[in-house]
């Protein structure tokens, strides 16, 4: 993880703050920081999104390619996650510095999406056993301000929402299967991604737990629980990280909080995405200049 150094007194200050349910910026333990999304930010992708959660800045692009399905799931497509940590975010990422974090994040995303009733992979199937869409989800970390997992999953979900795949017509002619991919940019299909999970990270600070920990708070946590939650509150993946240990009862508490927060996170994200879509072409693209 990207670490900042803190003095003991600062840590004590943060610890007591969490106990009092008044964090550094006045948030409660279950509040997220200010979050901004923007979709279709890159024209050369099938779908893209950018999420800015306070200082955490994440850009996601989705590319769809036709390929052969994997042998164990013949009637399903695939999603591949690739995370790239830009050295712009922090000099630590230079060279291979960000690789561990990148694998952590992509593994967590694989696990969160690897659940039969979250993201339906059958919709990516073109010809069973032969052809399917493979979605390459490329994630770029532009700035680190804590809570990378949650922000990444939100950006991925937003990008999937934005993704449109060209319509494919399959014609069978004397046993020869012919695929025709539509060139028309409006002849496309959207994905059904309503039930894809968001990741919620719960960090244990002192005796309480918080969601959306800032970098400073991440510095004070010894253990955290990362979970994938769908809009219905299904927990699709669970992972414990950090050197500290967690009490079974506190894990239950944290899961309950995570489920609750995850539900409202999913709902708010979908609301915002729907709102953005309603604005259509009228919306002003913001780009990367601040």
């Amino acid at each position, binding site marked *: 993880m990207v670490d900042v*150094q*803190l*003095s*003991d*007194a*600062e840590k*004590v*200050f943060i610890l*007591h*703050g969490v*106990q*009092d349910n*008044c*964090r*550094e*910026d*006045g*948030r*409660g333990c*279950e*509040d*997220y*920081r*200010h*979050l*901004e*999304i*923007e979709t279709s930010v890159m024209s050369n992708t099938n779908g893209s999104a*950018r999420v*800015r959660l306070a200082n955490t800045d994440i850009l996601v692009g989705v590319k769809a390619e036709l390929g052969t399905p994997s042998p164990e799931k013949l009637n399903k497509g695939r999603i591949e996650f690739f995370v790239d940590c830009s050295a712009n975010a922090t000099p630590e990422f230079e060279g291979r510095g960000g690789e561990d974090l990148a694998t952590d994040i992509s593994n967590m995303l694989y696990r969160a999406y690897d659940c039969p009733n979250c993201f339906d992979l059958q919709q990516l199937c073109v010809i069973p056993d032969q052809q399917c869409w493979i979605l390459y989800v490329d994630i770029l970390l532009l700035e680190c301000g804590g809570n990378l997992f949650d922000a990444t999953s*939100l950006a991925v979900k937003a990008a999937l929402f934005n993704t449109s795949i060209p319509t494919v017509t399959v014609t069978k002619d004397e046993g020869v299967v012919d695929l025709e991919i539509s060139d028309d940019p409006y002849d496309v299909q959207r994905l059904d991604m309503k039930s894809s999970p968001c990741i919620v990270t719960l960090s244990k600070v002192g005796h309480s737990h918080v969601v959306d920990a800032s970098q400073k708070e991440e510095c004070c946590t010894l253990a955290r629980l990362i979970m994938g939650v769908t809009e219905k509150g299904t927990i699709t993946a669970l992972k414990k990280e950090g050197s500290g240990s967690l009490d079974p009862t506190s894990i239950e508490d944290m899961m309950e909080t995570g489920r609750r*927060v995850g539900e*409202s*996170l999913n*709902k*708010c*994200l979908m*609301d*915002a995405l729907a*709102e*953005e879509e309603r*604005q259509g072409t009228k*919306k*002003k*693209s*913001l780009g990367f200049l601040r």
Partner: protein
Amino acid sequence: MIITHLNLGILLTRIWRSMVDVRIAGARSSTKPNVSAEISNLVTPGDVITADTGFMRGHGTYMEDEKLYASVAGVVERVNKLICVKPLKTRYNGEIGDVVIGRILEVGTRRWKVDTHAKLDSVLMLSSVNLPGGELRRRSEEDEKMMRHYLKEGDLISAEVQSLFSDGALSLHTRSLKYGKLSQGQLVSISPSLIKRRKTHFHNLPCGASIILGNNGYVWICPTINEEVEQTGGYEQNLEPIQKSDREVIARLRNCVLALAEHKMMLYDTSVLYTFEASLRYSVKETVKPEVMADIIEVAQQRLEREGT
């Protein structure tokens, strides 16, 4: 006006319940006032400042084909024949006598390496700190062994710039009881060019918190320390829990400082205080939202123009 506030109220209650606030980026800052028209001396890198050869080249500028160009984005400042560009976003360029906040990075032989948001790490010599107890004597080998006991990696200090090395690195000192190790509180980092130079950078605000506006863009906000307690240069730290009311004041101040920085306003005691007072109409949580921030800043700005000094 009333209608917009009502709308805002409805919006905010909705957010409060849902705990999560997802916004569309395009909706942001659509009504930002166009101030760039007012600032005529704002330049970007590569802009010609003057073609007149009678001027001297200062910081942030370069000469080419007998024309003076800006090398950074910022505001042009002229002192007689010297032209400089003061960058909007910059690392800290130290000057002797500045009050800075720094974080200890490394404990070395007879010196500490300190991060002050300057281009190079600053140096705090063992001989330029007050020893605990305030003894004045030559630093012995014993003191050298105790260095990590005094200040260790990650500790925050307030200090003054004592001198500049030839490479531009700063040498700090804490030889006054007002400087030294910082205890409980919050550090906020903003652009150094937004800190207004004042006689004093230590302020006990009437709202119940103290603020140190470091010239290097680091702002320290902490609960007001009782003056009667003997100042020890921060070696004795009070790690007792802080009252929730104080904590809220600190959080609010932090949000105000960030709001000022976000809107590129100069920071000094009055501007911080006015912003704080303008923010009291909202709850602490709400003050991080961009539209609330803009509203607070506007109110504070108007008040500054009216009665500010």
